[in-house]
């Protein structure tokens, strides 16, 4: 049995093209231009989905994006809105959230138990007894939910687009198109967005100044008129100079028992079925009305062959115009002052068999003693509208409730935002066109007055004369004529002792759920929303918020304006996650020595955004052997490591020293030119965030390093502080512009001597000194630092000289068997020396007091960041302290790893932060946080649950007297291997 009508003038379907598709395992077909829902409805399929909670059968309700009765899945495409999605050949559709099939969903037995699942069920059940939560969570998660994610679906890239315009018109109804034309005639660059597939207006479509986005939603409002326009394939980020919101209104359901049965639909849905898709909504209809739109819809039904059994008008009186007379001429009974008390289901309970009509008493209650049943297979509802004002709310519009039309309308709009048409409370077609023109002129007038640098709007002389009469005050032009009727009924709600009179179709919320919630004290719109979850489904309240508000207002005795509305956050319309996801542009940096490392066999690791050599592989040698050989080279001969990834910052100016005094915890004002000093950076809470070495190159000139991963953030923070404090100094980030290598080992000086004229004697260039000179002719800054615990030089040069420097050092070191070493060897070498690594041996809460870095904090300074917090922390008992430890000398089992816990008396007493086998000491050494009261020998629990005993020992493990920085080493030449 086909419900397809003979061709309807202006229909959107192409009858020459037949599209086959599958739904719930059966073959269907439709015409090109059909949506999934219209094609199925035309074939007589009435149950298109199941409700979220009670699994009730659902069919077409709004035939728009305003409800989710008909959510479907097409293989890996989830939550397709069948109402608005065009059919495509080969679609394999199924309704979501069913057990079995959409027509025989086994889970619909829940409908019978709905009395035991009242609103607030979750809160009440789990608040008292959390043990039940696991049981119920599993049950509820199985029974509810939307589509099933296919985790193996291929990745889809949805690139964003960017667009700009003078005037963005949202909504292509009568007022929106009028506004667009008005603005375009004045020469503005206009964009029109509409959620529908067609506009059908030649003048607009052919206008050179108008661009049109169809099948697209302006899905949110962000500051400065930044609107995400979402279509099926992508998001367009639109920046508009002005916005005209002509988004119209959403038709609202009447609330009566079984108002969700397939066959009960909004009048606008029935009209769309007829005029767009030439589908007869039903054979015999009862039409529930409360405005003249409903009579118009009834006449449309009659015209296209539907038998209208009766018109039921909620109002005591109606206006007897031409449309009403035409209906009366066809002997259609009109029951005014009546309601539909309930829709009686058919024997399968998946469609309508009759409408039960009752007169209303003066309190709006059904007088059931006078009820009558009118047989029908469909019910049409035309009882009111709610403005699609989400964008206006998000833009910060102040709205007021207009009693005469029972609707919120804009009262005070933001400067560059305008509204027209139904969202502005204007319903008659001629007035909507005028209202659109008014909004268009206001937008132009705004553009003309907001000419400023970079925002030049070219106005023709013609336009200036056109714009002149534009009013400055909204609301008094065009003159709002006296309304003969309100388009919306104030109380389209009928109570029923058996319930199932749904307010929110997404969440299966009935009238009694609201009554109960309000009685339990959730009597404010925000509380009511959270407790009942009204408007929190995928429809975001488009068909439910207004009726929920009316129920709350009635029970609390307030006006609708006093109750107010909640504001849907952007995006107020669900958007596929793939539209929001961005491509990942994780930057990967390579040092200027990268190709040198590659040719030396380096194995790389990621350090922050950098690729650094972990170690250099050698033929026939394991990773561990390679690392051991590298550490041995540094300890006994000389090694070289690329440390170009360190943050490198230059600071100049009269206040340079003062600046450092404030941002670092140590003392720098008294540093002599040509020296270096360790620097520790804290945040306001006194937590360690970075460290490095500061070199003083002049009275007003410093150069300092930061950690590799901290470079970007430290520079950003220092820039911020410099602007805030307004000190006389400037900072320059040289991280990328300069490179650095560390030449370390007993023969480091022998190697360097060959390449520089600098006096490298202990007297001329002592430990912790900084010197500027040349190395193989390359201008360089050299610092004698001891991170790895050997005599060494950190050599900083311009990045473009780094390859030349590296080659020169390797060549000069050939005699001493120089070896490049990687990050792993460096970690081990510094551990032997007891030096900690920020981020490994500290975490997001570690203070210098815990990390044993009190010596780097000069608390007697007048100010430094974190000082005040440290003073407070210092008065409290330390919770943990970083200590060195060793495993027993002959330990041979599975060693603990970083992050393994230390257990004392069955309690956690600390954790390991660093551990490694020291080839120099021939045993495992490490660093760990321990409660101060922990005894010297403690137990570490390793992954397999067994315990390893360790002993606290002082650091440095290696060279505690710092002998390696003193001149006692025989020169390289005398050691012949």
């Amino acid at each position, binding site marked *: 049995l086909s419900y397809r009508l003979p061709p309807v003038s202006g229909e959107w379907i192409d009858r020459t093209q037949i599209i086959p598709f599958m739904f719930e395992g059966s073959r269907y077909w439709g015409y090109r231009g059909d949506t999934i829902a219209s094609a199925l409805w035309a074939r007589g399929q009435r149950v298109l989905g199941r409700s979220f909670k009670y699994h009730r059968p659902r069919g077409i309700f709004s035939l728009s994006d305003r409800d989710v009765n008909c959510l479907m899945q097409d293989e890996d495409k989830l939550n397709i809105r069948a109402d608005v999605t065009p059919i495509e050949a080969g679609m394999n559709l199924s309704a979501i959230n069913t057990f079995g099939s959409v027509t025989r969903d086994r889970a619909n037995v829940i409908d019978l138990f709905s009395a035991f699942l009242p609103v607030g069920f979750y809160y009440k059940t789990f608040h008292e007894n959390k043990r039940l939560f696991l049981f119920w969570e599993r049950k509820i998660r199985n029974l509810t939910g939307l589509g099933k994610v296919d985790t193996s679906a291929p990745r889809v890239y949805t690139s964003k687009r960017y667009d700009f315009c003078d005037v963005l018109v949202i909504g292509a109804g009568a007022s929106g198109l009028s506004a667009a034309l008005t603005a375009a005639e004045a020469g503005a660059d206009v964009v029109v967005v509409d959620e529908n597939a067609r506009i059908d207006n030649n003048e607009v479509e052919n206008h050179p100044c108008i661009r049109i986005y169809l099948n697209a939603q302006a899905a949110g409002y962000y500051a400065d008129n930044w609107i995400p326009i979402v279509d099926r394939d992508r998001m367009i980020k639109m920046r508009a100079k002005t916005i005209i919101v002509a988004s119209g209104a959403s038709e609202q359901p009447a609330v009566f028992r079984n108002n969700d049965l397939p066959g009960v639909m909004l009048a606008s849905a029935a009209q769309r079925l007829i005029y767009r898709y030439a589908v007869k909504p039903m054979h015999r209809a009862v039409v529930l009305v409360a405005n003249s739109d409903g009579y118009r819809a009834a006449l449309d039904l009659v015209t296209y062959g539907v038998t209208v059994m009766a018109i039921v008008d909620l109002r005591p009186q109606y206006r007897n115009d031409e449309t009403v007379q035409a209906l009366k001429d066809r002997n259609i009974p009109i029951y005014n002052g009546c309601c539909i008390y309930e829709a009686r289901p058919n024997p399968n309970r998946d469609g309508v068999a009759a409408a039960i009509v009752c007169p209303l008493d003066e309190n709006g209650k059904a007088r059931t003693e006078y009820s009558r049943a009118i047989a029908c297979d469909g019910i049409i509802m035309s009882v009111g509208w709610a403005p699609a004002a989400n964008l206006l709310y998000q833009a910060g519009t102040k709205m007021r409730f207009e009693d005469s039309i029972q609707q919120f309308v804009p009262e005070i709009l933001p400067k560059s935002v305008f509204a027209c048409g139904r969202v502005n409370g204007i319903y008659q077609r001629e007035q909507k066109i005028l209202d659109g023109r008014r909004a268009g002129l206001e937008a132009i007038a705004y553009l003309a007055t907001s000419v400023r640098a970079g925002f030049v709007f070219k106005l023709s002389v013609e336009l200036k004369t056109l714009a002149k009469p534009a009013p400055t005050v909204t609301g008094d032009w065009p003159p709002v004529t006296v309304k003969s009727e309100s388009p919306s009924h104030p109380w389209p709600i009928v109570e029923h002792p058996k319930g199932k009179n749904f307010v929110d179709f997404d969440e299966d919320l009935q009238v009694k759920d609201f009554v109960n919630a309000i009685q339990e004290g959730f009597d404010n719109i925000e509380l009511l929303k959270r407790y009942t979850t009204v408007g929190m489904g995928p429809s975001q309240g488009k068909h439910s918020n207004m009726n929920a508000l009316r129920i709350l207002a009635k029970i609390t005795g307030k006006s609708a304006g006093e109750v107010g509305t909640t504001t849907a956050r952007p995006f107020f319309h669900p958007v596929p996650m793939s539209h929001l996801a961005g491509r990942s542009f994780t930057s990967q940096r390579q040092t200027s020595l990268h190709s040198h490392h590659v040719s030396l066999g380096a194995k790389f690791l990621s350090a922050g955004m950098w690729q650094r050599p972990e170690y250099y592989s050698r033929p026939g040698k394991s990773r561990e052997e390679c690392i051991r050989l590298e550490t041995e080279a540094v300890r006994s001969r000389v090694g070289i490591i690329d440390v170009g990834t360190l943050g490198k910052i230059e600071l100049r100016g009269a206040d340079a020293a003062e600046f450092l005094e404030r941002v670092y915890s140590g003392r720098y004002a008294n540093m002599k030119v040509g020296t270096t000093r360790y620097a520790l950076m804290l945040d306001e809470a006194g937590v360690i965030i970075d460290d490095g070495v500061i070199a003083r190159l002049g009275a007003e000139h410093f150069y300092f390093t930061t950690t590799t991963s901290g470079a970007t953030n430290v520079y950003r923070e220092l820039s911020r502080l410099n602007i805030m404090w307004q000190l006389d100094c400037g900072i320059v980030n040289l991280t990328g512009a300069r490179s650095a290598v560390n030449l370390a080992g007993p023969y480091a000086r022998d190697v360097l001597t060959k390449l520089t004229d600098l006096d490298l004697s202990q007297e001329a260039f002592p430990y912790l000194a900084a010197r500027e000179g040349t190395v193989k002719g390359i201008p360089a800054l050299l610092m004698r630092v001891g991170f790895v615990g050997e005599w060494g030089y950190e050599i900083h040069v311009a*990045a473009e*000289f780094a390859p030349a420097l590296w080659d020169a050092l390797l060549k000069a070191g050939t005699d001493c068997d120089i070896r490049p070493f990687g990050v792993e060897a460096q970690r081990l070498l510094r551990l032997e020396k007891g030096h900690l690594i920020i981020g490994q041996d500290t975490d997001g809460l570690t203070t210098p007091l815990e990390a044993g870095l009190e010596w780097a904090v000069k608390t007697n300074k007048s100010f430094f960041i974190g000082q005040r917090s440290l003073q407070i922390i210092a008065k409290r008992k330390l919770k943990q302290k970083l200590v060195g430890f060793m495993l027993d000398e002959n330990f041979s089992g599975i060693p603990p790893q970083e992050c393994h816990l230390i257990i004392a008396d069955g309690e956690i007493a600390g954790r390991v932060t660093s551990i490694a086998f020291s080839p120099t000491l021939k045993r495992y050494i490490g660093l760990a946080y321990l409660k101060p009261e922990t005894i010297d020998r403690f137990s570490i629990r390793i992954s397999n649950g067994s315990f390893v005993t360790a002993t606290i020992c002082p650091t440095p493990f290696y060279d505690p007297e710092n002998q390696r920085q003193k001149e006692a080493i025989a020169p390289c030449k005398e050691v012949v291997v």
Partner: protein
Amino acid sequence: MRTSPVYDRLQLIDGTWREINGMRSLYSIPDEDAIAQRLGIADLSFLNRFGVKGAAAASWLETHRISIPDRPNTWNYLPESGLIARLGSIHLHEYIPSCVKISRSLSVAKR
């Protein structure tokens, strides 16, 4: 002795090399005029350049009779050769090509 940061990548290109300003540089490639007609990119790391930063940067440059761009992210030609780019409100960058020949190849790359 200087090495361009993209030196390794440029090794893949079949072209002639020349030392300019102490840097081994890719000097020309086959069909470069034809390429530049559409869109070309050239490594100019060999150019000498320096940055000027600070509240007095603009006035200092003006004392050297250098006309500086008035807005960030814009640039001017320098009188002899080269150009000056404004990177921020108080940050300027100058690129001074060392020889005319190179500045011509720069203009080809820019076309």
